[in-house]
């Protein structure tokens, strides 16, 4: 093994020992290679930091989306500090410093006019980016009861993310119900039951499925599957969580298959041979010996498939219908977290509250997939260590 070549004869500061004087280049290169390899850690860290950075105003509660805010009379311009003025006018400090006094005065008068024209119901004063409005139902003017509503493009933006969470969950569950039995069945068949010659054909073919870009699966769901499934089940809206879930299932079948197959194959052959020698059929050996031994790996496959399904974007964007309705019915048009980000970020005002909210749900998505990956990876590593130890 490469590791064994590194003797531990003298380890000084930063691995500096006698040899480095003779070969400074070796030492420098080794440190350089080490630094470059740290870039992976830095990248994961940067992703988290910079997605979170744009969402910070929402997490800290400093964003304000209310249509009506307290107005400062224009003649008080000189009394305001530059910071206060900048936040009041929605400009950066540099822009305030560069703008002349008359323009600032004009901008403040415009604020007064805007406040006079703003709708004067109770909703207009509400800062809809508060957690109370993001997570819990609220009775908006004109509605008969408290509801979960995601309506970012309206006079009073409503940012309740529960319909999106439900949408994501619905689509993901449909896709798992569709993909997991098929993928696990195929994994058991390919790793335990199929003739070896078929194995060499089937495995690359299923891996080919993972080579299909998700936009192509989305296109296929939109153009072919949607009409076919509607004809088959006769539901009302053509694009819905069911179609999106079925198409998403196609995307996660290769993921679940290859991890489960890997786990099943890593069960030592001696287990199977022992079972066969005792007179069991191949299926009995697979079901009673191999599957229980590899169960954590099968579980990891499902968890990693879940992570992939929650994060998939193009398929759900194209096939789910994109209506943010609060409903648990899988045959209703649905909007997921990922599709919302993809569809709305281009329209959101840069740095505004809508922008912040979209990054906030992006952060949630990152955390959810991070945790499921960590859990899946941990289980898989543990299992392999255990099985290899037993060999």
């Amino acid at each position, binding site marked *: 093994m*490469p590791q064994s*070549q590194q003797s531990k004869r003298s380890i000084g500061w930063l691995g500096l020992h006698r040899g480095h004087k003779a070969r400074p280049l070796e030492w420098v290169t080794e440190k350089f290679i080490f630094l470059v390899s740290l870039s*992976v850690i830095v990248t994961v860290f940067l*992703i988290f930091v910079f997605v979170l950075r*744009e969402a910070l105003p929402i997490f800290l509660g400093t964003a304000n989306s209310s249509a009506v805010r307290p107005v400062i009379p224009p003649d008080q311009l000189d009394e305001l500090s530059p910071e206060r003025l900048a936040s009041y006018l929605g400009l950066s400090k540099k822009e305030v410093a560069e703008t002349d006094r008359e323009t600032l005065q004009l901008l403040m008068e415009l604020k007064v006019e805007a406040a006079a024209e703003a709708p004067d119901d109770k909703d207009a004063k509400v800062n809809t980016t508060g957690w109370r409005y993001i997570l819990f139902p609220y009775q908006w003017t004109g509605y008969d009861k408290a509801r979960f509503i995601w309506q970012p493009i309206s006079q009073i933006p409503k940012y309740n993310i529960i319909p999106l969470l439900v949408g994501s969950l619905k689509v993901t569950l449909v896709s798992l119900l569709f993909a997991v039995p098929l993928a696990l069945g195929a994994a058991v068949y390919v790793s335990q*039951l199929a003739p070896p010659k078929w194995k060499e054909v089937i495995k690359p073919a299923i891996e080919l499925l993972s080579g299909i870009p998700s*936009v192509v699966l989305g*296109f296929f769901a939109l153009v072919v599957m949607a009409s076919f499934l509607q004809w088959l089940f006769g539901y009302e809206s053509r694009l819905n969580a069911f179609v999106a879930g079925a198409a998403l299932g196609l995307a996660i079948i290769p993921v679940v298959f290859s991890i489960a197959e890997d786990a099943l194959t890593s069960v030592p052959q001696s287990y199977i041979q022992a079972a066969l020698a005792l007179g069991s059929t191949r299926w009995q050996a697979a079901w009673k010996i191999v599957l229980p031994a590899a169960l954590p790996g099968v579980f990891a496959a499902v968890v990693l498939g879940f992570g992939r399904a929650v994060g998939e*974007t193009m398929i759900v964007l194209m096939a789910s219908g994109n209506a943010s309705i609060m409903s648990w019915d899988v045959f209703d048009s649905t909007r997921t977290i990922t599709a919302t980000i*993809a569809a709305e970020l281009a329209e959101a005002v840069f740095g505004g509250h809508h922008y912040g909210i979209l990054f906030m749900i992006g952060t949630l998505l990152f955390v959810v997939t991070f945790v499921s990956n960590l859990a899946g990876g941990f289980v898989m590593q543990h299992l392999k260590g255990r099985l290899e130890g037993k060999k």
Partner: protein
Amino acid sequence: MTKRFQRHKFDYVSFFCTGLTGAATFLILAILAVILCNVVFHGWSSFSWRFLTGGTERDMFSVENAGILPMIVGTAVRVILMTIFVVPIGVITAIYLTEYAHSTSFFTRIIRGAVNNLAGVPSIVFGLFGLGFFISFVGQNIDAALHISEPLWGKPALIWASLTLAVMTLPVVIIATEESLKAIPSGLREASLALGATKLETILKIVLPQALPGILTGTILAVGRAAGEVAPILFTGAAYYMAHLPKSLTDQFMDMGYHVFILSTQSPNIEQTRPILYATVLALLLLTFALNIVAVLVRTRMRANMRALQ
């Protein structure tokens, strides 16, 4: 007496369950076949040399003049740029993990964990990262430092899309390179070291040439993955329509995957534009499949070579 040693009673449960798992396998293969046949069958009629090399000067939704050259060029350029960024970093990281690091050290475990997690981050989050980091942090600071008043770097651009994709495909390159480095028999390294070569010389002259097919496989797989991805480039560089090909790193570009998305969701007449939609999908599928198949072939040959060495 002899009867007891005759063959077992036929086990119907085993037969049925084996059939069931086999059926699941063949259902997956059948769906794959249906997708491919559907695309080839409908896409073939509009798929021509003129379609592949035509521009979109007049109207990108017109069936007669349709051409996808700008999208092919855009996709190719962003993927090539991505390769330039991702391959050196990915290969060096893999070299560290297999040649230098102790497999149980703290940093190694963290790096491996980071690689695995990076592989599972949703593609749309990479898009958000590209927008939040490359465009609104790096790009806008470049603009500020160079005193450019019109946003030049601080807006969606070819380079930011490529960098975002490079971050996304980093784990693919690392994992494939690591696999090929591990497959090299340690006897080769030991022989080189025994002849007086230093560690660096051994890596550069013995290990890397042997690992080249593996690095190539990783690169091709990364390219295949990146070529079809749309979500990371939605906000970082892909353009709905551009009259000219991208001329510099700060230009936006048209993209094949994004074009499929536009044609299937925003076409003014979906029935009429269906032929060009299918033909574009066919072109995209041919590209990604060709890359994947080449990767598999290179890998198979590499494994055979390694077996011969051992």
